[in-house]
């Protein structure tokens, strides 16, 4: 009996967690698929981190926790505001191969970006290309083939025919898929006004967004395909006293298709056995974002100190969100309004640089589900096309970044530097869910914190610059599928029924580790 008392609360929490995840997953897909996340605000309702997948362009500051409000990042900033490319006074070639991996074999990726910043007189531009290989977050396992052959069933129950699933096209698919990225930017300096104007176009051809496959527990195979398109117009105003002002307007379109294959069990009267049949679901994940971003930097009176602030507004419409297996909200549309307000300080003192950013993100999101057919409710009925569930999310996220950089003279006129940093992201939201069918209201609070220590090394030669940076994110989680979900699931299931290995999702903590080596060299 004591053992049962010990087990019951734990399972209860597990179920609760699974349910929380089920409800929250409706917004996960709003994770920004872009290489320039600063102006696109990520909305996450589950602690599945995806950012490492898309942080593959070279950066001076990512080893410092990614501080950037009061400390410019000349390598990465042009991907956020194309007008920032004007700060690069010459033409440079760069490459930044990198990897990331999730512990527990829950995902990995490798990216090879190459690119160049070019300048000709008052015109400047850039072109960057990247190819990426992403390992799925789980092994695609066809529901064990031996199961299909009936080998797990008692001999007396085995079918006379050789295998219940004979479709030769049925395969678990490849675990690794490729993505492609291309960014083109073009701008012009208006020296007289101290202004730079530029535009950029980024396109991503996507076959694997990390973590998505985990949102369809019980599925046998998830094939992703789609693209993201990002258009930006940026302005940079640099004043003579080193103050700077930036503005960006952007439009981002994200469209993915998830083809999910399940093997559903069914009772086959002909064989008196549970057999399997294939079911293919096509889920669309579409989000369109309009955004505006302002940023201002100024020197402070104290020597070496700079102050910056930023403000961002995003309006997202998501006409289609995947109908995840773990959720009860089918393909819900919705809208979100996301903002961030940030302030940062930095100090450069000889060979040492210190920076700190604090960003606050308030987000409001409203999603709903529509009835395909008239539905009887507790108090009446909902016509076809009427809302069946409404979700009101209120996010209150905070991001703190700290970092330092110390340059060291080394032999031969070379310059070395090391970097250390820490990024802390706190995500919290309140969900108010109105189930208009059951006539019930659910209120829920969810929060978690991710800690990402970062580190970096750089070597600057006269001919080129070589950088390494790494990071390790703690606090991320990855779903695992488990049995359960029933009030008596800790008791033996009678009848000897063969149960498919699908169940409610629970989350296990993982660490996400990334490494990147980048180098850049002047072209002329």
């Amino acid at each position, binding site marked *: 009996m004591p053992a049962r008392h010990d087990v019951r609360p734990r399972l209860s929490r597990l179920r609760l967690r699974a349910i929380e995840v089920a409800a929250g997953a409706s917004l996960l897909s709003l994770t920004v698929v872009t290489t320039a996340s600063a102006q696109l605000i990520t909305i996450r309702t589950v602690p599945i981190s995806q950012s490492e997948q898309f942080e593959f362009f070279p950066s001076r500051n990512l080893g410092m926790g990614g501080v950037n409000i009061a400390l410019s990042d000349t390598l990465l900033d042009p991907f956020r505001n194309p007008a920032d490319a004007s700060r690069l006074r010459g033409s440079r070639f760069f490459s930044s191969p990198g990897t990331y991996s999730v512990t527990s074999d829950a995902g990995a990726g490798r990216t090879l970006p190459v690119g160049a910043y070019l300048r000709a007189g008052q015109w400047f531009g850039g072109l960057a290309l990247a190819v990426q290989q992403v390992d799925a977050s789980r092994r695609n396992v066809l529901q064990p083939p031996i199961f299909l052959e009936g080998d797990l069933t008692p001999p007396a129950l085995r079918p006379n025919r050789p295998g219940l699933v004979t479709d030769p096209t049925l395969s678990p698919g490849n675990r690794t898929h490729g993505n492609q990225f291309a960014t083109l930017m073009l701008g012009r300096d208006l020296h007289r006004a101290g202004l730079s104007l530029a535009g950029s176009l980024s396109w991503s051809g996507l076959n694997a967004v990390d973590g998505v496959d985990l949102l369809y527990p019980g599925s046998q195979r998830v094939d992703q395909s789609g693209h993201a398109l990002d258009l930006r117009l940026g302005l940079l105003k640099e004043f003579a006293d080193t103050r700077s002002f930036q503005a960006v307007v952007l439009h981002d379109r994200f469209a993915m298709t998830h083809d999910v294959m399940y093997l559903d069990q069914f009772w086959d009267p002909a*064989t008196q056995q549970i057999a399997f049949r294939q079911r293919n679901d096509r889920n669309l994940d579409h989000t369109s974002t309009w955004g505006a971003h302002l940023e201002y930097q100024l020197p402070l009176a104290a020597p070496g100190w700079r102050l910056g602030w930023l403000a961002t507004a995003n309006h997202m419409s998501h006409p289609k969100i995947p109908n995840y297996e773990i959720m009860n909200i089918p393909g819900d549309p919705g809208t979100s309004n996301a903002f961030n307000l940030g302030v940062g300080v930095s100090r450069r003192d000889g060979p040492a640089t210190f920076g700190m950013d*604090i960003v606050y993100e308030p987000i409001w999101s409203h999603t709903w589900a529509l009835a395909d057919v008239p539905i009887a409710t507790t108090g009446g009925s909902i016509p076809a096309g009427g809302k069946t569930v409404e979700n009101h999310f209120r996010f209150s996220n905070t991001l703190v970044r700290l970092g330092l950089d110390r340059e060291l003279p080394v032999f031969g006129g070379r310059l070395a530097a090391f970097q250390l940093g820490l990024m802390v992201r706190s995500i919290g939201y309140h969900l108010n869910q109105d189930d208009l069918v059951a006539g019930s209201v659910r209120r829920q609070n969810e*929060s978690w914190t991710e800690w990402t220590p970062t580190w970096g090394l750089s070597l600057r030669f006269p001919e080129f610059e070589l950088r390494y940076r790494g990071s390790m994110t703690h606090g991320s989680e990855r779903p695992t599928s488990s049995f359960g*979900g*029933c009030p008596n699931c800790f008791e033996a299931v*009678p009848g000897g029924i*063969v149960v498919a290995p699908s169940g409610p999702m629970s989350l296990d903590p993982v660490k996400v580790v990334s490494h990147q080596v980048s180098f850049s060299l002047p072209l002329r």
Partner: protein
Amino acid sequence: MRAPLLRTIPIAALILAASCEQAETPPEPPPPNPTDAQLRQTLSVYGVVPIGPTPVSDPALVRLGQALMFDKILSGNRDISCATCHDPAAHLTDGLSLAIGTGALAAGGARTLGPGRRFAPRSAPTLLNQGLRAYEVFWDGRVSGFGAGPFETPAGAALPGGLPNIVAAQAMFPVLNRQEMRGDSGDLDRFGNINELARFSDDQLVETWNAVMVRLLAIPEYVTMFAAAYPGMAPQALGFRHAAAAIAAFEMQAFTRTGSPFDRFLDRDDAALSPAEKRGAVLFFGEARCSQCHNGPLLGGQSFANVGVPQLGPGTGAAAPLDLGRAGVPTQPNQPPNDFYRFAFRVPPLRNVELTAPYFHDGAYPTLDAVVHHYNDVPAAIQGFDVNQVDPAIRGTYHGSAATLADLTQHLDPRVSTPIRLTEAQLKDVVAFLKSLTDPAARDLGSLVPASVPSGLPIR
């Protein structure tokens, strides 16, 4: 330049405050309402999966089976057919607590015991979804087996081979049962002729089956129908197993009704169940413990349980007037009853249960509401059974002595031996769920009744 910094400090303080607020762990939220996803996962745990299509049978075989199902020629006294007790008008049962076999009187459409006859020990189970083929059939599961056999049956080695499935195996037996179809020795049939089937002793199974076939093949229309169903087979090679296979084909083809709202829910239509039905389902597969027995694809049909059903009727076997159920089926020849199964009966599949009252092996309860109240506190229900709720004709057969009730209670299945204590509202939800198992197409089965049968005997 100091002013901007000073202005920034309050903003930073606010942001830090917000950050600190987030760092607090929120209180654990209250348990949410059950979701479709949660219910689906629970169903998966209990092996409740959609029902696939039944195999399509040869139309000639099905036509033959339909004729045999409704033809009283199969009974010794030519007064009862399979469909008499498995009447489409009563959803393939007879609506009686205990079945009435051959020799019944029919007045105003209601069948009553004939002179010298007695009730069968158990109710006639519905044949709805018999074609889905559970592992055991009959209330005591005395016929069991998988696929095309071999089958465990009371016939032992006398059972002919070649039976295609358990439904056909089951169909071999009612014609042997004196109370149900064969009649007693000395009976005269409806025309005053000797009932030749009743003349065989109870261990002359093969002879009885052969005698039935003699009757059938004496009718030219049956000869034609058998020839169509079994082309190329000489009449002398036909046995009653061929008739049983045809009856089974008809049952599987015509009696399968799996279009209930619950089946639509299993096929991923979340809107198929009402909120009350979903609440009931969550109870059914959880707190109410129903799924501890009623699980698997058929929601039952694969185990036995003593759930404390009051003992009614003449009883059966050596324990009569009690009915020990599964315990009365020897696991080995000449073995004593297995007390583990004392008073245990087959856990029936539940689809369309709303239509097949009265309930349990002896029809002790007339409504689903009464059934769920019984389960809510089985020990109390055993002691407090109100015999007035059953047919007056069988009230006198209630075995409610203290010793019997103690015996029944002592051998209760542990899954029902303690009260569940659902509220009235919860019990209503469970009933709502049970009614969601009804296929609308099962409500009227009148179209299954043929206009006539080859023997020319009346169908009603």
